[in-house]
């Protein structure tokens, strides 16, 4: 008898909570990154709440690298900007000896 009285409110409450849970899950999926530890360039964890290495700058290589292939990512042009092909004789063949690469680091 008692269950009958609370049945519908309980179902509604369960549906509401379930919906909230799903929305949270959906929101979490939309984030590009889950929560993560910042790390110093030595790979040590930075924890401002405990004060652990909390005065050090974070290192993108050490922080993002464990999940994302930092070395592979930085092969992209935006990171190299010609540095990966730079050499002293780069432009000689084209008659532009002052040109050292085809990117912003080395071109005229």
């Amino acid at each position: 008898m008692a269950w009958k009285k609370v049945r519908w409110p309980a179902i509604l409450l369960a549906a509401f909570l379930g919906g909230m849970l799903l929305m949270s899950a959906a929101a979490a999926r939309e984030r590009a990154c889950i929560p993560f530890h910042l790390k110093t360039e030595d790979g040590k964890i930075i924890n401002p709440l405990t004060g652990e290495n909390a005065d050090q700058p974070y290192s993108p290589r050490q922080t993002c690298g464990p999940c994302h292939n930092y070395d592979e990512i930085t092969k992209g042009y935006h990171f190299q900007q010609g540095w990966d092909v730079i050499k002293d004789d780069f432009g000689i063949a084209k008659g532009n000896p002052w040109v050292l690469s085809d990117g912003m680091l080395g071109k005229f």
Partner: protein
Amino acid sequence: MFEWVAVGPTDPKNIGQPGCGGCHPGGGGLEFDRDGKRYDQRLKEDPSLAQSLDGDYYKSKWDKSGVVEADCLICHLPGYNFPERNKQLKMWNFKWASTAASGIGQVVGLVKEGQEPRVFYNRRLFNEDGKIVLDLAYPPPSENCNFCHGISDAKKRGFSWNDRRNFDVHNSRGMSCADCHPAIEDPKLKITRIQHQFAKGDENVSSVRDDLDNTIMTCKDCHYQGYMGAPRPAHLSVRPNHLEKLACEVCHIPQLHIAGGEGFDVTTGAMVNYPTMNLHDPAKSPKRIGDYFSWHPRFAHLKRGQLAPVNVLLGVFYTNLDKDGIHYPLFGRENKKAYEKAKDQLKPADPMKPEIHTPEQIKIILTALSETLQGSKRFQQIKPYYHKGGMSYHLDDKGEVVAAVDHTWAAHMEGFNINHNVAPTGLALGAGGCGDCHSTEAHMFKGQIVTSLFGPTGKPDTISSGRLFGCQPWAFYLNQFHQLYLTPYVSLLMLVLVFGLVLHYTGQGPKVADFYGAPTEITWFPLSERWTHLFRMGSFLILAFTGYIFFFNNITLLQMSFGTPQMAVIIHWVVGLIFLAASVISFGIWGKYARFEPYDKEWLAKHGGYLGGKEVEVPAGRMNAGQKIFFWLTTILTVIMGVTGVALIFKTDLPLTLSCLMSTIHGFFAVIFVAAIIAHAYLGTIANPGTWRILVDGKVSRNWAKKHHSVWYKEYVKEEEDKNPEA
């Protein structure tokens, strides 16, 4: 390299502006030296490198500043503080830059001032377990791309994004940079998404990663496949050859609304930028690149052959012609030193903008440069050149200025492609009709384009836009005749002609001849002649129909009649070739009858009996004088139409000026041709009832032949009698 990362103004107003390192996200050359070793670690191991002439370490403090690792957050963190990053880099806080600019921590202390920076993290961003929670964006928001591209591309091509005044129709539909420039995933190129190589178009000027050219989806790709709901263009009023010859951007980016770069001058040793100029009212020229200012681009042929809008940065700069025959660009410090020497003699109104343009000024600066470069270990020969507006200047052995057309690399005039800030369809060129480009007021041909920042008079040199892409002014005005006078009035002229024929018919009446009922009919037109005439007539009707629609550029009617405008064009020239072939045959058949004879004078004197309302006898051979005139007229017109028409088949390969000339001649004489044929049709039908029957069975009555072609008839009868004396 160390200096390169940190370079840039450090005054409070400009410290947030990016220097060289600002627009480099880190990694690569900002992390590793040319030997692939981390700068900070190597310098710690060997501090003497900072005193060496190694360009990677010369006077560097990598051991204190740290290196600039790839800053993921510069692209992926909405709200990233780009000016803060620039400030950190300029103050040598390389490894602290990302922490400070991302806002996850505050950085106190500047390496440049001998301090060791400390970080104070924003603890609100951290969970209890010490993990940070950042709302990173994938793909990156356009605002972050704009940190760098907003600045560099504004100068190159008047680009801005998220800018309501310099709007972009794709931007207004919510598209972001990454929608068109995603990370490339292409097994053929051996590139994976993780490598962060972004799709690009085919930049006209830049040499950057040409191997990635055209990895971006084209306008056509999206708008024919419906990518992201891109609408399929109808182009109902656009001629097919325009779609072939013009890049989409020509019509769809008619104007930019922020000032780009018109050019730059390095005379002072600094890069002095000149924003897009207001030629109509120089006093209202924008003061800086990026200021709101509406301007029309210039047009240039791309490598793929299409015309496209571009922005040429007109360079005013200096080289030294060395013994190896190569023009070497001079360093800014060399220019600066020479300018300091010459400044007192030059007496520029604005010391930051000397705008050297007179032979005297050129002589002064080149002399100063010669003196400055003396003893330079860079060159085996000192021969400085001044490059400006497509001309080069140098001093001869006597120290006098020699001017010549600049054929060196310094004179390159390729422009930066303009392909952003796309206008809505209603604002595209052509939405307002052909006049959007072909009127005398339109920018396309008559707009003025700067070719030299300061010409011989000190004012900018300009040239008409059309001339730049190959249309001579006279060809443009000839085309104007077509646009302004021929097209609007051709229908009226035809109506006037028909009205005149109606007046003739009602006033003079038809020529009545006893066409039927004769006891013995004569075959006037044998089958070969009837077919020749039929082919010529039929093909002419198709040519006139298609040509008339071309005249008014009514693409809808072309589609209704021929499926596609392209098909109509093909039909027009294929049928044109058939008409030409039929005309050659008809010339072979009837040419011999078209020679003028003495008795034709009488026919002409009596107007062939077509005027006066009375039936008169006029002598005529197989062709009367009027027909002979018509024959020769149409022969000449056929030659003109044939020559121009065949040339226009290859229109897309013709120089623009020749194409304009051919089109105008073709259109003008087509009108005369059609008028002549209408008159011919009138005389061959209702003006001479029954005559049309000749086209059906080729037969005429003897009375008709005797009346209309008396001389020929006499010869015919004589010949008949000679063959059969008894009859």
